[in-house]
């Protein structure tokens, strides 16, 4: 993958406009669905920083998402709204801190080991919330009242308000996207791209590769924590399921489906995944069978992910396309 260059993405403002105007026309069901997609997009973007831009295939990303979501519930008062100033940074920090500790262990390994070890550590964290009194067992815990942002007596933002919630999520998606864009073209971003391309040479050029990878891991954990915070606020409860390896698998799926290594791809992947999930589960209770079939098909015939589809189609239509290429 070449270094990130500034390409004109002229359809991005359009997407933003559609997202901004959507609630004006959409029903509450669709608003909620789009909010969910945007939360998942933040989650997928955070993982793409690892998988697509640092070359770290993590199969345990749900741990940071889930730990942050739990922190929201644990830090909010039982019957009063939590303070957004406190709860949000705490959730992001929780994601980052858990990633820091896990990173110290897992980043000592490479390749296939890394995949297995991240999965195992995520499972460990799953058990922490599942088995100990901390997390309320397999039933999870409720966030009775969602956090709000107030200055003095005045409530500026109230996450219990679906409309406000929608726009907060949108704002955070934009923030996360821009943050990653900026990060990727910074010296750090270029170093991560170098690590992805040739870690060995990076080290012999004098880069402390471990620290760079840890920085990437912690950043990704913090962003996943942001997504976890929003998710906890959307549903008003948390269960160990959000820490499960299914969740890790799904977000990895979004990143790969969309074509990893491009921020837009991760967002597209999140969109595609949630929509497929929605459509399939409306069709049958055994929707995972269809999802599995889609995954297997994509791997076998579309190695570059969904975002490679337009190019492939173009190749086919123009006729010069080499289908195996």
């Amino acid at each position, binding site marked *: 993958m070449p270094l990130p260059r500034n390409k004109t993405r002229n359809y991005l403002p359009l997407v933003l406009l559609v997202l901004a105007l959507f609630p004006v026309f959409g029903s509450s069901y669709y608003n909620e669905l789009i909010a969910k997609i945007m939360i998942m997009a933040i989650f997928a973007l955070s993982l793409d920083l690892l998988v697509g831009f640092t070359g770290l295939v993590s199969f345990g990303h749900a741990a940071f998402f889930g730990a942050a979501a739990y922190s929201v519930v644990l830090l909010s008062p039982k019957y009063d709204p939590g303070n957004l100033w406190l709860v949000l940074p705490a959730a992001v920090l929780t994601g980052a801190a858990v990633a820091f500790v896990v990173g110290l262990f897992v980043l000592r390994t490479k390749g296939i080991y890394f995949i297995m070890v991240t999965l195992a550590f995520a499972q460990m964290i799953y058990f922490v919330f599942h088995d100990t009194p901390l997390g309320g067992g397999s039933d999870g815990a409720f966030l009775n009242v969602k956090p709000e942002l107030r200055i003095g007596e005045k409530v500026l933002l109230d996450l219990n308000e679906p409309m406000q919630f929608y726009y907060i999520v949108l704002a955070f998606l934009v923030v996360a996207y821009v943050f990653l864009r900026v990060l990727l073209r910074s010296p750090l971003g270029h170093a991560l791209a*170098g690590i992805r*391309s040739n870690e060995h040479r990076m080290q012999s050029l*004098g880069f402390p590769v471990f620290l760079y990878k840890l920085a990437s891991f912690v950043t990704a954990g913090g962003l996943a924590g942001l997504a976890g915070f929003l998710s906890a606020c959307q549903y008003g409860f948390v269960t160990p399921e959000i820490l499960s390896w299914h969740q890790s698998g799904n977000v990895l799926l979004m990143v790969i489906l969309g074509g990893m290594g491009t921020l837009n791809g991760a967002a597209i992947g999140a969109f595609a995944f949630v929509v497929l999930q929605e459509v399939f589960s409306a069709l049958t209770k055994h929707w995972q069978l269809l999802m599995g079939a889609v995954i297997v098909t994509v791997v076998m015939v579309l190695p570059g992910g969904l975002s490679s589809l337009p190019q492939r189609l173009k190749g086919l239509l123009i006729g010069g396309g080499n289908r195996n290429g």
Partner: protein
Amino acid sequence: MAELVLSARGMSRRFGGLYANRDVSLDMHKGMLHAVLGPNGAGKSTLINLLSGDLPPSAGQILYRGEDISGWSPDKRSRAGIGRSYQRTNIFPAFTVFENCRLAAQSRTPRALRIFSKAVAFPDLRDAADRAIEQAGLAERRDVVAATLSHGEQRQLEIAMVLATAPSVLLLDEPLAGMGPEESQSMVALLKKLTPDHAILLVEHDMDAVFAVADVITVMVTGQVLESGPPDQIRDSVAVQEAYLGEGEPDDE
């Protein structure tokens, strides 16, 4: 006497039962080019790997400006000023020549925390990169993606990347292998130009080049130092002729 920069003391490295380096001692001085000769499998690359930290030694010491650095990681050694090139081209294939070198230069100036500025916006890094590219003779290919370079040009890039890190020690593993005669010549000229300010270790099979640039030559056979001394001494050495030169021209890869 020239300043002693890097030295190995009784350094050994085993792979299972095989000694790739056995009790190797050698000194590198600033302003001197130290060439290492030896047949294939003599342990020359292993020597460089040990000095650069790519491999930990099984025994012995490595001293850099008087300090024992045997336990240092490769990146720490690189930051301290020990740069190396690889026998097998080891670059970032998807980046352009300039990006390869800019990234190399970036390693000198940790700006990891400046995440809100553009990597390409630092003029000092761009200058360092462009200077290295110029020195290695790749100026015309500056914006070409490395993977599409010819083999010889990739070898040049390999050198440009080390130079971009502004090292005081250069460990070069067969830099001329794969280069055409013209590039070889300009590389030899470059080595001569670099020698006064650097301590250089040159592993090379090209005899003419070695005898043209070397101040000291060490001949290795089966992991051990056979003889070490000025070029004339090596040329006249009976032991070297028997063990190595006598076999006829060593084959280039």
